[in-house]
């Protein structure tokens, strides 16, 4: 059955027991994203720790906290994402996002790099279902947005 390819055990585990869920302080920026086709929502906060060069791409993702409602794919994806991003630099995180986005757009033909994507390779099956790709990317887009806001705040402060 194809369902098992989509709903891999890793996904169902993250769905049932989401990691890092809940909104936390402190945070630098918050973002609220909605999937207009189904109404699924995520509110996501990013806390960054500046590196020696200040708050830029070399800053470390100190925390990603979120509150969300949605389907198993969107919930599991948010959970897996926090595992991948927390502790990495912003630039590293954006590279993972690029890799994950490429996998989602691969129409089932992608060969995900498990060293980069770790648990997120489980979403390979989702890429065969165009209607569900947005579900998998919802939290990632919110993180990208919140991170951009965090960095912009720093620039405004400097100027």
């Amino acid at each position, binding site marked *: *059955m*194809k*369902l098992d390819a*989509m*709903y891999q055990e890793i996904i*169902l585990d993250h769905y049932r027991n989401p990691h890092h869920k809940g909104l936390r302080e402190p945070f630098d920026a918050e973002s609220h994203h909605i999937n207009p*086709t*189904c*109404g*699924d*929502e995520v509110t996501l906060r990013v806390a960054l720790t500046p590196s020696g060069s200040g708050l830029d791409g070399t800053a470390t993702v100190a925390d990603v906290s979120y509150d969300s*409602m*949605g*389907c*198993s*794919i969107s919930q599991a994806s948010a959970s897996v994402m926090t595992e991948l991003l927390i502790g990495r630099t912003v630039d590293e995180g954006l590279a993972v996002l690029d890799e994950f986005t490429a996998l989602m757009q691969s129409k089932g033909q992608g060969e995900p790099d498990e060293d980069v994507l770790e648990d997120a390779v489980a979403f390979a099956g989702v890429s065969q*279902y165009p209607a*569900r790709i947005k*579900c998998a990317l919802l939290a990632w887009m919110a993180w990208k947005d919140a991170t951009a806001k965090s960095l912009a705040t720093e620039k405004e402060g400097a100027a």
Partner: protein
Amino acid sequence: MTGRELDVEAIRADFAILSRTVRDERPLVYLDSGATSQKPRQVLDAEREFYERHNAAVHRGAHQLAEEATDAYENARATIAAFVGASAEEVVFTKNATEAVNLVAYAMSNAATAGEEFARLAVGPGDEVVVTEMEHHANLVPWQELCKRTGATLRWFGVTDEGRLDLSDIGDLVNERTRLVALTHQSNVLGTVNPVREIAARAREVGALVLLDGAQSVPHMPVDVAELDADFLVFSGHKMLGPNGIGVLWGRRELLEAMPPFISGGSMIGVVHMDHSTWAEPPQRFEAGVPMAPQAVGLAAACDYLNAIGMENVAAHEHALVEYALKHVGSIEGVRIIGPADAESRGGAVSFTVEGIHPHDVGQVLDDRGVAVRVGHHCAWPLHRRFSAVATTRASFYLYNSFADVDALVEGVREAQRFFGVVRS
């Protein structure tokens, strides 16, 4: 003709797509006709014949094909008008029901600057437009926008827990300031069939107009504009066995005559000068550009097809399917039907939630079994908010659905519950 049971097998034979398989050779169980219906061979043949024999730009040119195409287009208008008890000159073709709603909404705001002759429909500050909480976005957002453009106030009927319109405050809501009441005839989510005559009667008392969204009613039950006492009726061809790309606005003749155009350009004109133009009479006033003649011909063929079966019979068949679905889907543990629990004044849409499983996931399991349903808010976000549901799963029926299709739905929902472990298997 009335009371005849539908020969679903014979009907299905007219719809080639219904015999295909999906997702690893699963027979297709199509339960998404509320979104769009499938098309019988007769409709496709009519459209093909138009292209192969009569294709030309209608209302232009004097050659034989232009005459034949124009005749086909205008005959289609007459057929489609008769299907809802209207006369041909009161029927305007649009892209879809959404455009038909917008046509009226823009005519109302354009009326403010169209001169004295067209002031009748103008709205402004102090005027009110009334909608309902169960509207499809297509019959909500255009009115929000109209109010934004003109300063008029938008008000709405609430929905009861049972999924019926709350008419308890009708006397206050529809008052002497009300210019238009826009409501759905049949909810695309709840299946509720609204008491249009009662609301129209109140609108008449205060001189308000009534626009009826028939996108979910005209395909599924006998609809007669005179009987409903509405002023405007909109519906879409693709939801009633017809082609995509054609919708209908029916309006009372004197209202259409009082309306300035929405979209302007070729063939909606009287006389054109470099600095100004006059407009054609309705319905041409509202049909700028080369119209969708092949789609009109296809939609007329769809009306013929439905007439041959009888809309009373279509409605009775769907009523039986809804009763069966309410009973069998509704009795699954953890399933909550959003909409009336009984089949009285209720059409063929059954929306529900399954405790512990998001509708997207329910839909995915159903899809894996070949069962096509709609998941999401079905373009009725405020209504979902009203029922504290982010989204629902919706099964919607048509004349080609059988009781076995409902059984497949029920089995699929149970499978989703097993798959996601929300029931003891």
